[in-house]
């Protein structure tokens, strides 16, 4: 079981590192919009800001997803479960984590397919002529990482049951 704890620690630390990318991306879009607005005052806006802010926004959210889950940061209704005996809770939480894992597995897998198809068709953004697919791979990476976090959460339920 020590090995499980080590894996859990490793996954959490990795999720936190992935989250740093999201933090940096937030700062980036702030500075980018400011540069664009100020540049516009002098007749020199930053070209492609509109596209870039949206694409980087996708990186922010998908890279922040795993660590948000690690920190139990998603909105959920716990009025009923709080009042349930521990065995019911453990079973329900395990099912939840497993189902969510499958869901984000599907999203990650389909994002890869979506990105591949856009890469093949050579889809680029209108102003910067920048390929769109790398950002969709970014979403796939974030959702894939969330999948791993949810798998750990699933396993942890059994550990909790063992301790009780």
């Amino acid at each position: 079981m020590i090995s499980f704890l080590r894996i859990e620690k490793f996954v959490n630390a990795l999720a936190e590192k992935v989250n740093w990318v999201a933090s940096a991306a937030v700062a980036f879009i702030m500075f980018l919009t400011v540069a664009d607005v100020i540049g516009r005052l002098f007749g020199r806006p930053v070209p492609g800001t509109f596209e870039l802010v949206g694409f980087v926004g996708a990186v922010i959210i998908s890279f922040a997803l795993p660590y948000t889950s690690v920190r139990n940061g998603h909105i959920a209704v716990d009025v009923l479960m709080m009042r349930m005996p521990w065995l019911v809770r453990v079973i329900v939480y395990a099912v939840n984590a497993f189902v969510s894992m499958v869901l984000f597995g599907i999203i990650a897998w389909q994002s890869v397919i979506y990105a591949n198809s856009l890469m093949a068709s050579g889809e680029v953004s209108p102003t910067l002529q920048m390929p769109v697919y790398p950002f969709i791979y970014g979403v796939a990476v974030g959702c894939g990482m969330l999948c791993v976090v949810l798998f750990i959460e699933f396993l942890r339920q059994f550990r909790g049951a063992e301790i009780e």
Partner: protein
Amino acid sequence: MSPTTIGVIGLLALVVLLFSRMPVGFLMALIGFIGFGSIVSYDSALSLVAKDVFAVFASYNLTVIPLFVLMGQIAFHAGISSRLFDTAYKFIGHLPGGLAIATIGACAAFSAICGSTNATAATMAAATLPEMKRYNYKPELATGVVAAGGGLGILIPPSVIFIVYGILTEQSIGKLFISGILPGILLTVFFIAAILIWVTLRPELGPKGPKSTWKERIASLPGTVEILVIFVFVMGGLFAGLFTPTEAGGMGAFATLVVAIVKRNIDWKGFVQALEETTRISAMIMVIVAGATIFGHFLAVSRIPYDIASWISSFNLPPWAIMSIIIGIYLVGGCFIDSLALIMLTIPIFYPVVLHYGFDPIWFGVIIVLVTQMGVITPPVGVNVYVVGGVARDVPLHVIFKGAMPLLIAMVILTFLLIPFPQLATYLPSLVK
């Protein structure tokens, strides 16, 4: 099975499974995926989820959320929230219930740069509860005021709920923001009146504090005027059409950062923490938006929204009765579900009805924000009460719920005022082109 039957099963499954504590956004995406798959085909459902998720995450309009969240986070880490309270307290702390009134005032001011009700409640709880305890305020008054005061965070712009509502209904976010100003100020006044009546009836709740001199009062002002300057700059630029909402968010966050750096109120560590909190809150919100988008596509192919709209019209009820039913549904729903999730879930269903009966979309936005803000302080799921309870660990939840009651009455009164006087919400936006 007909699409409508599948739609009904999907809706029921959603309501029941919400109580399993699965994250609301995950659940909406899951049921939306299964439902869309069973009505159309699983091949299209598979490509739908990836496309919806990317479309939402990469939406330029939605990046306004992280930017306005960042603005509030920087203000919090720079200690602006506690300085707002200090100033308000120096002016009115000597009155009975004065600290509670100062808390409401600080909530109103802080919400001018913070777009989230929970964040406002959490921030102000941390800043004001210790002070109120020090002056022997009863926990009932102190915690109730902070929990309800968070509601101002979402009525006074910027407001995450208005952003999401605006995107869902294709209404101008700028107009929605400005529509919340007057009701927000009114609600502040009503909250203060509620506190005054309350402490008159039960003076032991909020004893008088020490009186500050005018010199001290004036000296406390420089810590707070920058809020006003930033607010006027951001909202002014938005209304004058100088920037888009996203740009307003970016400029506002940057201006707050510059002020904090110049006044040496924030260091590198504080800035990094603000960024990290921003990513967490944004991911939490956007997962719900993405889940609701997938669920919305499922509802659309199930034809449920149209069925409900024609079902409601078949009763031939007068518009006010329809509106009362809708408000009632939000009130009950708000007691159980987070306000953002509730709005995402119900707007596709109710919005066509609201338009059909000729209600003003902007006015309706203000109404549902008010009504869902009642939900965050009513049992059993009062998110703000939980948030405040998390800060004040020694106060039982039922005490906080009880403490928020007088302020809840103030919100009910404002809602009833808005029905005969929609101009309260629609007049200011009508001035903007």
